[in-house]
């Protein structure tokens, strides 16, 4: 299990290959990658992500351990950036390995749903018209009810 909370960029390809190379016993590997989108259509200058050092790592570790308890999984990877990001930058990724594809998919979705609403990150969008904290969506909270 590798959990990284970092300011610097990560290389999706290198991380994917390293993850798959580490865990050849499992037939199914799923990755999810989040990318900064310009939802304001051309207005987004940058995004600033704040986090709670210490709690962030604890919260992600707990989420990942919960996933490993619920599904038959091999390795699990979570990388999440903080600090300043621009449109097109990759914010975060998760990877799961499992003997069966259903487990790998479900565990990756579970990690994402919990990272969205239970890991202490906060996004602020800086557009040409000002800065605004991204509001939590009801649908993200609702997504937890299915687990």
């Amino acid at each position: 299990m590798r959990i990284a909370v970092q300011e610097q960029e990560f290389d999706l390809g290198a991380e994917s290959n390293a993850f798959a190379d580490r865990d050849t016993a499992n037939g199914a590997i799923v990755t999810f990658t989040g990318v900064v989108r310009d939802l304001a259509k051309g207005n987004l200058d940058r995004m600033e992500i704040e986090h709670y050092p210490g709690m962030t790592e604890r919260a992600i570790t707990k989420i990942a351990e919960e996933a490993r308890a619920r599904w038959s999984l091999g390795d699990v990877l979570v990388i999440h950036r903080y600090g300043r990001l621009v449109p097109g930058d990759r914010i975060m990724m998760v990877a799961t390995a499992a003997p069966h594809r259903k487990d790998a998919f479900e565990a990756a979705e579970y990690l994402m749903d919990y990272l969205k609403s239970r890991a202490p990150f906060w996004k602020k969008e800086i557009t040409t018209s000002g800065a605004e904290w991204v509001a939590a969506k009801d649908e993200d909270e609702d997504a937890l009810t299915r687990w």
Partner: protein
Amino acid sequence: MDVLYFAWMRERIGLPKERVETDAATVAELVTELSAREDRYAAAFADLSALRVALDQELSDFDASLAGVREVAFFPPMTGG
């Protein structure tokens, strides 16, 4: 104990962290104490449904006990991922 603020809570209170001496038994009592200090605290804590609290880096509730707690953090709902 240490009290931490994140995101717009940090901006409204005007600092990321402060040392607080208190006899508050619960988070709710601590919130009442802090809100009584100054307008910026009262404004920041006005709507508890828009806030989350962590005790010693674990998510908790406003009616939780502060016994033995060393670090309290207040912040808006998280927006990771």
